[in-house]
C-alpha cells in the first residue's frame, strides 16, 4: 500500500514539475525527494535501516544504506489518512494508547507486516526514550540486529569523542552487515554535500526571517527534520538551492509568501501531520503565518571531511531536543527574536514526554522575552479524537489576546 502511495505521489509531483518547470517549485522538489525516499524504503530493492532521529544519515547513505527514522513513516501514515487502522492495531496488540502516536503507528504497521523488513536497525537515545523503546521492539519483531547510539547531553569534547567512537563502531557494524568496507571517497563526497547543504539551508532560514516572510506557513513545514534524511546527497543540495533562489526572488520582488501577513508565529516541535483545518484557520481567519519551526535551524558547524566522525557526533548532540530545557529555551528565544515572531504554538503532542513534559518551562522561557505561547493538547499524528472545536476556540482566544497587545 505504501509503495503504491509513494509511487503515485512521486509520478504526480514529477509531472507537475515537468508541466511548469519555470514556476517556483522548491517545495515540489523537496516533496519529490521525500517520496523517492519512501519508494526506496518500500521497494524491497535496497538495503534498508530503520533508525532513530539522530542517526548519521549521510554516513549511512555513503555506505549504500537507505535509512530513515521511523517517525517519518508515522508522519506519512498520518498524511495518507490511513493511520487510524495502524494505531488501532498497535493498541489491540497491547501498546498503550498514551505512548507517542508516531511509534504506535509504526508498531501497528510492523505488526501487520506492512513495514519493510530492514537489514538492521540503529537506535538513538536522542530525542526520546520512546524512540529507543520502539527500535528495541522493532528489532524484536523483525528479528534483526540492533545498534544503539547513546547521544550524550552536552557538547563537551569528551562527550563528542564518546559519540564519535560509537559512530565509528556503528560504521563497523554496518560494514559487517553489508560485507562492504566503508568507501572513503563516497564518505568524503557525502560530507561535502552535507556541508554545502548546511550553508545553503542557513541562507534559506535567514531569508525566511525577512519581514514579511517569503514563506507561506507551509513551505518549510517538517523541512529541517526531514532534510536530515537527505543530507549527504546531491538532491539535498539542489532542494536547498531551489528554496534559496525562490525565497531570495520573493524578497527581492516584495512578494511575501502570505500576502497581508499580520501575525508571525513560531511552531514548536512537530506539525500536525494529518489534514486538518487549523492551518487554513490560521492563514485565512487570522492572517497568521508560521514563519519558523523549532527544528528549522542549523545548530551545528561544518563537518571536517578529513575527520567526519567528530563533526557527525557534534551535530547529533546539537539538536535542540537534547540536553536540559535551558538549552532548548535559549534556542527558541534566539529563533523568536531573529524571526520577530508575535507568538508561538506548542501542540504538546500527547504521547511525548520529552516535548509535552517541557511545556510549562518553554512557556515560561518565552515569556521571559515577551512571547506568548499557545499550548494545544493534540496528538499530532492521531486524527481519531481531534477536537477541532476546542482547538479553534483556544486559537481564537489566543488571537484575541494578541489583538489586544497590538
Amino acid at each position: 500500500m505504501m509503495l503504491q502511495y509513494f509511487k503515485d505521489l512521486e509520478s504526480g509531483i514529477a509531472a507537475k514539475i515537468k508541466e511548469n518547470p519555470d514556476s517556483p517549485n522548491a517545495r515540489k522538489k523537496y516533496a519529490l525527494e521525500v517520496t523517492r525516499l519512501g519508494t526506496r524504503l518500500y521497494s524491497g530493492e535496497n538495503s534498508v535501516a530503520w533508525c532513530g532521529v539522530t542517526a548519521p544519515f549521510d554516513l549511512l547513505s555513503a555506505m549504500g544504506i537507505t535509512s530513515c527514522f521511523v517517525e517519518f513513516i508515522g508522519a506519512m501514515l498520518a498524511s495518507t489518512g490511513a493511520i487510524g487502522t495502524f494505531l488501532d492495531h498497535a493498541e489491540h496488540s497491547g501498546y498503550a494508547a498514551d505512548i507517542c502516536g508516531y511509534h504506535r503507528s509504526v508498531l501497528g504497521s510492523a505488526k501487520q507486516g506492512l513495514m519493510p523488513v530492514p537489514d538492521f536497525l540503529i537506535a538513538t537515545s536522542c530525542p526520546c526514550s520512546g524512540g529507543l523503546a520502539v527500535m528495541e521492539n522493532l528489532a524484536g519483531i523483525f528479528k534483526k540486529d540492533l545498534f544503539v547510539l547513546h547521544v550524550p547531553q552536552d557538547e563537551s569534547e569528551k562527550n563528542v569523542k564518546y559519540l564519535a567512537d560509537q559512530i565509528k563502531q556503528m560504521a563497523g557494524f554496518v560494514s559487517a552487515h553489508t560485507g562492504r568496507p566503508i568507501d572513503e571517497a563516497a564518505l568524503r563526497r557525502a560530507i561535502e554535500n552535507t556541508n554545502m547543504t548546511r550553508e545553503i539551508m542557513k541562507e534559506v532560514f535567514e531569508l525566511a526571517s525577512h519581514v514579511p516572510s517569503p514563506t507561506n506557513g507551509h513551505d518549510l513545514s517538517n523541512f529541517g527534520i526531514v532534510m536530515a534524511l537527505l543530507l549527504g546527497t546531491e538532491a539535498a543540495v539542489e532542494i536547498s538551492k531551489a528554496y534559496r533562489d525562490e525565497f531570495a526572488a520573493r524578497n527581492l520582488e516584495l512578494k511575501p509568501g502570505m500576502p497581508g501577513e499580520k501575525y508571525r508565529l513560531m511552531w514548536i516541535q512537530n506539525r500536525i501531520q494529518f489534514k486538518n483545518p487549523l492551518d487554513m484557520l490560521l492563514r485565512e481567519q487570522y492572517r497568521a503565518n508560521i514563519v519558523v519551526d523549532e527544528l528549522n535551524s542549523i545548530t551545528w558547524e561544518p563537518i571536517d571531511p578529513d575527520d567526519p566522525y567528530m563533526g557527525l557526533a557534534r551535530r547529533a548532540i546539537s539538536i535542540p531536543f537534547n540536553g536540559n530545557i535551558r538549552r532548548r529555551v535559549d534556542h527558541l528565544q534566539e529563533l523568536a527574536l531573529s524571526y520577530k515572531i508575535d507568538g508561538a504554538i506548542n501542540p504538546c503532542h500527547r504521547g511525548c514526554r520529552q516535548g509535552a513534559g517541557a511545556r510549562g518551562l518553554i512557556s515560561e522561557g518565552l515569556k521571559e522575552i515577551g512571547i506568548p505561547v499557545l499550548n494545544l493538547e493534540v496528538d499530532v499524528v492521531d486524527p481519531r479524537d481531534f477536537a477541532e472545536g476546542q482547538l479553534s476556540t483556544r486559537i481564537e482566544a489566543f488571537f484575541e489576546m494578541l489583538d489586544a497587545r497590538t
Partner: protein
Amino acid sequence: MSDNKEYIGFACAYTPLPVIYAAGYTPYRILPMGDSPDRAGHILHDNLCPHIKRILDRAINNDLPDLAGVVFMNSCDAMRRLADAWHHIRPDDNMILLDLPVTADELSVSFFTGEIKKLIDAVSEWGGKKTVTAEIEYGILLYNQISDFMNELTEKIYAGEKNTNISVLQELFNRSVTGSPITFIEDARKLLSENTQGKATNEGVPVFLFGHLLPDPEAFLLFESCGAKIIGDDLCTGSRFFNPVTTDGKKGLVESLAESLLLRPPCARTIDSTIPGKIGNILITKAKKSGARGAIGHVVKFCDPYLSRLPSIREEFQKAGMPLLVLEGDCTLRSIGQQQTRIEAFIEMLSK
C-alpha cells in the same frame, strides 16, 4: 562509628550511592509517597509518569528533609524533565544530572566512569572537601553490606523462613534508602539474628511481582489480603536495587562502580542490543525460578520504558504458560486498591 548527617536526594536505582556517602552525606531516596497536593502537572504535563510528578509535588510542597543537594540520573525523558523542573522550583539547590548510558558495553562503562567522576567533583564541591578514594572504597563496602543483608533478608522472607510480614521487607527497603546506612546495617544484623525464625503463616497463592516501583508497604498487605503470597520480585524499589559492587583490583574503583551499576539487573529502560526485548526473558526466568504460579506486573502510568515493552513481556509469559496480571497505577495504594477485584479474581483463578 560516626554517621553522615546531611542528606542528598536521589530518585533512581542507578545512582552511585557510595560516592554520595563518601562525600559525607546520607543518600535519601525521594520516594513517590506522601499526600502532597497534585501540582506538578502544571509545570510538566499531566501525561508524565506519576513517579516523577509525585517527587516534584514533594519538592513543591516542601515535603522533604533538608537536602544539601540532589542527584538525578538521565534515565528517561521523564527524569530529564524532572531535573529541569526541580531546578525551576528550587533554583538554589545543588543539583547534578548524570547521563546514564543505555547499554553496558565497554564504551558505555568508560563514559559512565567519567560521569561518576563528575559526581565526585560535584559532591566534593558541595561539601567543601575533596572526596578521596579510601572514602569511596568505604562507601562501596558499606553499600555492599546493605545489599548482602537485604538480599539475605529478602530471600528468607520470601522463603517464609522468617515469621514476619511481607510489608516489613518494604519498610526495610525504604529505610535502607532514606536513612543512615550504618544504623540500617545494625538493625538489619539484629533482625537477621533475632528469633523470628519459624514458618510464616501466609498460605496464599505464590505470586511473583514486577514493575518499576511500589514503595508503599501497605500495597503488599493488600496483595496478601487478596489471597496472594509474594515470593519474589523484580522492582526498582525492591530486590533489583541491591547489587553489590564488584572490585577486582584490575580496574579502577570508579570504573568498577560504573560497571557494576550498568550491569545490575536491568529495568525496562536499559537495553542489551544483542538481545532485544531481553527484559521479558529476564522476568519470566525470575518468576519461574521463584516458584510462582502467576505474576503481577505493576506498571506506572505514562512510563514509556515499561509500557512500550509490555507487549513483549506479555508474550514471554504467554509462551511460558504463566498467567500474568498487569496493573497500571500511579504509585499509590489507592490506585492498587481500585483494582482489588481484579487482583482477587486473578488469585482465585490461580488457585484453581
